[in-house]
């Protein structure tokens, strides 16, 4: 079970890190990166769940879900970056209006 715990703890750590960064970092790029990290953490949890079948081959369903999840997050990243780039191009800002002032 040790390997599973490593997955779980890493996953939890990544999620915490990602959520914190998503909220704290004003820069668009860091925000996009942050939700990718959070997503990776959740995927790790799911991968760990595959081993819950104690004997025999691991459960394939979580792997399928993680693959789907990766596709989703790639497209989301693309949308986010495209928007951020356009916004930067128009206004010169790299963060949302209210947020720069806080830093």
């Amino acid at each position, binding site marked *: 079970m040790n390997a599973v715990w490593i997955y779980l703890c890493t996953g939890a750590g990544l999620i915490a890190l990602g959520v914190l960064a998503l909220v704290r970092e004003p820069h668009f790029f860091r925000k996009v990166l942050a939700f990718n990290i959070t997503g990776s953490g959740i995927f790790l949890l799911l991968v760990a769940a595959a081993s819950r079948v104690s004997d025999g081959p691991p459960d394939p*369903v979580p792997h399928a879900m993680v693959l789907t999840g990766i596709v*989703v997050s790639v497209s*989301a990243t693309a949308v986010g970056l495209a928007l951020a780039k356009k916004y930067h191009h*128009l206004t010169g800002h790299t963060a949302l209006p209210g947020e720069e002032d806080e830093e």
Partner: protein
Amino acid sequence: MMASPEAWLVLCPLAAAALAFLWRSRGAFIGIVSALINGALVAWLIALMRTEGVRRIEIGGWSAPLGIEFYADGLSPWMLMLAAILGVATAVYARGYFKDPGSWFWPIWLMLAAAINALFLTRDIFNAYVCLELLGLSSVALIALSGNPDALAAALRYFFVSMLGSLFYLLGVSLLYSAHATVDIDRLRSLVSETPATLAAAAFMTVGLLLKTALFPLHFWLPPAHANAPAPVSALLSGLVVKASLYLLLRLWFEVFPGAIFASVAPLFGLLGAAAVVWGGIQALLQERVKLVVAYSTVVQVGYFFLLFPLAAHPLTAELARQGVIYLLLAHAIAKSAAFMAAGNFIRVVGSDRLEDMKGAGTALPVSMFSLGLAGISLMGLPPSAGFIGKWKLFSASLTAGQWWWTVVLAAGGLLSAAYFFRILSPALAEPSRLGAKIPRTMKWTPMALALAGVLLGFLAPQLLEIFEIGAPLRPAAAMEGGP
């Protein structure tokens, strides 16, 4: 599979989206045809369900957990019907609104339609996540459509909110899967118990969805997003998209999570809902822009929906409250999109979105004025509108349950909405001014048709609610019925 409307309901808009993307100059045509086909498919599904009852379809012959299943009980066709009505109306309105028939609106909107249809048909919480993401991303793109900095900022804010909400939801899904090795709603329902893992999953998924539903105090992103989008997009976002995450939340709390915890969490939802009604109403009164007033009214309406939880926790009033909220969903979808479209017409003619500039707009656009008034009647909950039926049922449910304080919330919400609608209507009714801009006929009459439908639907309540009651959806787990 050929004979199942469910599969076509997803495939058809998806194919239309691809087609509209490739053949952009004919986007408007493809969009309208697709919306009409969508309406026919929903009618077909409802007709089938009236004879067969609940339907369950395995796509491609693969059964769950690996394959994808479509499932439809009464709540699904109800939501699909809502989406279909708004789909046709938005398509007709948007054809006039976007002067360029090759606008990006069409492919993105069709993508959104596919995602939302799939969400209302799935019985699998992971699939629901994928649909939710697709829905969120297409909404983001639609908000950014106008391309000005305000719209882009609103879109980015919405994007991050949507991501945060989805991630919380996905976290809950993975916890539930770890605990029970399934993502099927029916299987989960029989497996879940009050273990910490399940309860943590419930908490994560709930807050994620609350954020997406914009329940007070998580509503901050909604007004700028809905107010900065083009009018047909605002109509869709407020009328439909907000209800997608709400739909999932209802499914989860009534059909997945253990009934024993429902009664203790329900008052919290009720309290937040009541706060949303009051706070949203006050904010709507304070806004200076027409679309912000209408958008805050969505915050208010979302609050009403959450009164379902405390009232459904009481066995005597569960049915009344369920029907009331279901009818409010319909009433709000129709009236709110009518209101946004009518407001869009004013803004197009006046050239500004500020309340003080609206003087005389009503004389220039009497039809839009009238539609906004009718939509207001339904949103305030005056008879005979659909909104009245919903509120009336909630009202009698609160009295029957002995929870009279919700009636105060309902009454306060009605008064506040009367006040803020008056704020829009009274300058618009003032002395006529010379306003030149012309708007296409479809843009004038679409909100009118919607608003009229919203008022007249009050009369069809018994017949329509028959559709909703097919397969008895949203019945809480047995443990709750006998619970405290």
